[in-house]
C-alpha cells in the first residue's frame, strides 16, 4: 500500500482512538501496534518493549522530572502570591501598575514553576480579586491571568521546550533562550491590550490609579521572593556557562528549591514534602509514558515509510512556504484545542520537522511558533485548562465571561506569531548571540 495512504489511515485512526477517551500514551501504543501488526506482521511486536525502553534510555530526559520537582516545590509554597505582592508594591507608580504587576508576576512565576495552570492558580487567587476590587472589568481580570498563565510553557525553563528539544534533537539551551524575547513580546502585548480594554470599557479612571506603599512595605517582601528568582537565574547561568547539562542543572535547582521552600516557607512537615514529590511523580510519569509511547509511534511511522513519504509529498507540492506554515499553524492550533502540548509535540515533531527544515524554516524559530500555538490551546475550549482553573478560583465570574475576556489575548498570540514570522530573529537572535550561530 502507498505509504501516503498508510499515513492518512494512521492519522484517522489516531484521531479516532484518542477521541474515544483512552489515555494519550496508551492510544499511541494501540495505533502503533495495530499498524505494525497489519503491515509488518506479529514478529515486529517483539521489539515493542525495547523501543519503549530505548526511548526513555536518555540522560537528557532526566531534566523533565527535575524541572517538574523544581516547579512543584515552588508552586506548593506562597511564592506566587508573594511575587505578585512584591511586584504590585514596587510597580504601583507605573500607569496601570496592577495589570503590569499581575502579568509580570505571571511571567516570572511561569518561569519558576514551568506550569501554566499552576501559574494561573497561584497569581490569580490574589490577582483577580484585587483587580476587580480596584475597578478592572471582570473580563480583563480573568482574561489577563488566563493568558498570563500560558507563558509557563514559553518562558524558560520550560518542560514543553525540553520535550521539543528531545523529540527533534535540538539544543535545549538554544530553545530556552529562543523563548525569552517572544515571551517578553507576549507579556507586552498582553499588558497593552489589558490597559486598552480597561480604558475602552470606561474603567480607566479608577482602575489605573495606583495605591501608595511605604519603603518598609516594599523591602520587607523581597527576602521571600528573591531566593527562588536567584535559583532560576543560577540554573540558567550554569546551563549557559557550560558548567552543567540541562539535567544536571535541573537536579541542583530541584534540590535547592526544596531546601528554600523548607527554610523560607517552613515546609518541613513530611506531608507537605510528600505532596511535592507525589505531584511531581504523577506529572513526570504521565509525560514520560507519553514519550516512551511516542517513541514506538514514531518508529512505526518511519518503518512504514510514512514520515519520509509525507515529507517528500509536501516538498513535491511546491506550495509557497508561508502557505505551508499557515497550514501547519492551523493544524497545530486544532491539535492544541484537544491535546496537551507535550502530546502534540511528540506526535507531530517526527513528521513536521523534515517538512519545516526542507522549506527553509529554522527549527528553533519553529519551536517558539509551535509553543505559542500550544499556549492558545490552553485558553480555548474544549480543553482550555486555564479557563477552568480561573473558573475554579473565581467561581462568580462565568465561564462565558472568562472566555470572552481571554479571546482578545488569543488575538495577541496570533499577532505575536505574525510578528515572529516577519522578524524571525526575535526568536533566533538571543541564542545565536549568546551561544554562537547554530550549525
Amino acid at each position, binding site marked *: 500500500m502507498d505509504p501516503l495512504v498508510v499515513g492518512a489511515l494512521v492519522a484517522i485512526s489516531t484521531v479516532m482512538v484518542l477521541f474515544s477517551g483512552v489515555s494519550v500514551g496508551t492510544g499511541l501504543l494501540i495505533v502503533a501496534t495495530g499498524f505494525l501488526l497489519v503491515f509488518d506482521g506479529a514478529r515486529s511486536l517483539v521489539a515493542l518493549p525495547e523501543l519503549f525502553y530505548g526511548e526513555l534510555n536518555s540522560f537528557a530526559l532526566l531534566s523533565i522530572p527535575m524541572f517538574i520537582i523544581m516547579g512543584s516545590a515552588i508552586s506548593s509554597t506562597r511564592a506566587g502570591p508573594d511575587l505578585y505582592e512584591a511586584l504590585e508594591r514596587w510597580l504601583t507608580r507605573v500607569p496601570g501598575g496592577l495589570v503590569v504587576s499581575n502579568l509580570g508576576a505571571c511571567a516570572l512565576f511561569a518561569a519558576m514553576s514551568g506550569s501554566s495552570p499552576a501559574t494561573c492558580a497561584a497569581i490569580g487567587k490574589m490577582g483577580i480579586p484585587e483587580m476587580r476590587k480596584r475597578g478592572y472589568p471582570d473580563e480583563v481580570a480573568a482574561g489577563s491571568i488566563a493568558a498570563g498563565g500560558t507563558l509557563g510553557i514559553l518562558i524558560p525553563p520550560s518542560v514543553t521546550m525540553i520535550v521539543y528539544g528531545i523529540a527533534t534533537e535540538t539544543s535545549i539551551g538554544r530553545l530556552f533562550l529562543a523563548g525569552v524575547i517572544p515571551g517578553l513580546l507576549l507579556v507586552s502585548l498582553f499588558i497593552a491590550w489589558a490597559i486598552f480594554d480597561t480604558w475602552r470599557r470606561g474603567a480607566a479612571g479608577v482602575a489605573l490609579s495606583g495605591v501608595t506603599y511605604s519603603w518598609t512595605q516594599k523591602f520587607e517582601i523581597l527576602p521571600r521572593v528573591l531566593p527562588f528568582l536567584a535559583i532560576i537565574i543560577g540554573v540558567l547561568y550554569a546551563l549557559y556557562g557550560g558548567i552543567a547539562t540541562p539535567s544536571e542543572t535541573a537536579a541542583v535547582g530541584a534540590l535547592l528549591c526544596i531546601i528554600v521552600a523548607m527554610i523560607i516557607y517552613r515546609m518541613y512537615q513530611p506531608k507537605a514534602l510528600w505532596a511535592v514529590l507525589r505531584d511531581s511523580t504523577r506529572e513526570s510519569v504521565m509525560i514520560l509514558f507519553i514519550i516512551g509511547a511516542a517513541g514506538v509511534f514514531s518508529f512505526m511511522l518511519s518503518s512504514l515509510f510514512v514520515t519520509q513519504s509525507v515529507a517528500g509529498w509536501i516538498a513535491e507540492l511546491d506550495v509557497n512556504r508561508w502557505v505551508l506554515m499557515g497550514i501547519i499553524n492551523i493544524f497545530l492550533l486544532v491539535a492544541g484545542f484537544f491535546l496537551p502540548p507535550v502530546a502534540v509535540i511528540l506526535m507531530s515533531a517526527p513528521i513536521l520537522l523534515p517538512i519545516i527544515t526542507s522549506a527553509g524554516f529554522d527549527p528553533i524559530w519553529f519551536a517558539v511558533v509551535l509553543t505559542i500555538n500550544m499556549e492558545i490551546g490552553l485558553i480555548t475550549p474544549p480543553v482550555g485548562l486555564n479557563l477552568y482553573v480561573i473558573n*475554579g478560583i473565581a467561581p462568580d465570574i462565568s465561564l462565558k465571561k472568562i472566555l470572552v475576556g481571554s479571546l482578545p489575548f488569543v488575538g495577541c498570540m496570533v499577532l505575536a506569531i505574525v510578528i515572529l514570522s516577519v522578524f524571525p530573529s526575535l526568536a533566533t537572535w538571543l541564542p545565536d548571540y549568546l551561544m554562537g550561530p547554530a550549525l
Partner: protein
Amino acid sequence: MDQSTYPPPLVVRLIGQISTVCGVIASFMILASVLITCQMIFIRAVLGKSTIWQTEAVIYLMIGATLLGLPYVQKLKGHVGVDLVPSLLGRNGRRILAILTLIATGCMIALMFYYAYDMWHFAWARGWKSETVWAVPLWIPYLSIPVGFGLFLLQLVADLWMVVISEDIAAPVAAEDRRH
C-alpha cells in the same frame, strides 16, 4: 446507582494499595536520582574526580520510576486523554465507552507485559550486561518493564471491575491538578 452503594471489594482495595506502594517507590526513585545527580556534580566539579556509575544509575532510576509509577498514576486517573466525547455522552454511553477503553488499554498493556517478560528473560538467561565501565547486568533495569506493565494491568482490571459494578467512571483529572 450511587457509588457508595458499592464499596470497593477487598481485592480492588488491595490492588489500589499495591499501586500506592509502587507510587511511593517511584517517588523515592526520582528523589534518589536528584540526589545522585547532585552528588555526581559535586564529585566532578568540586573534587575534580571522574564519575563511573552515576549517569547510568539515574537513567535506570528514571526508567524504573516511570514504569513503577504507571499503576499509581492510573489509580489517580492521572494519564491524560481527550475527554471530549465521553463528556458529551449520557451516563450509560459514558459507562459503555469507559468499559471499552479500559478493555482496549488492558489488552495493549497485556501485550507489552508479555513481550517485556520475554525481553527481561533473554537478558537474564544470557547474562547481558550494559556496555559501560560499570557493566550492570541488564536484567536489573529490564525487570522494571514487565513488573511496571504487569502492575499497571492489575490496576486496569481493578478499575474495570469498579466501572462494571459501581459505575465509577474514570473522571478526568481536575484542571487545577494538571500542570501541563
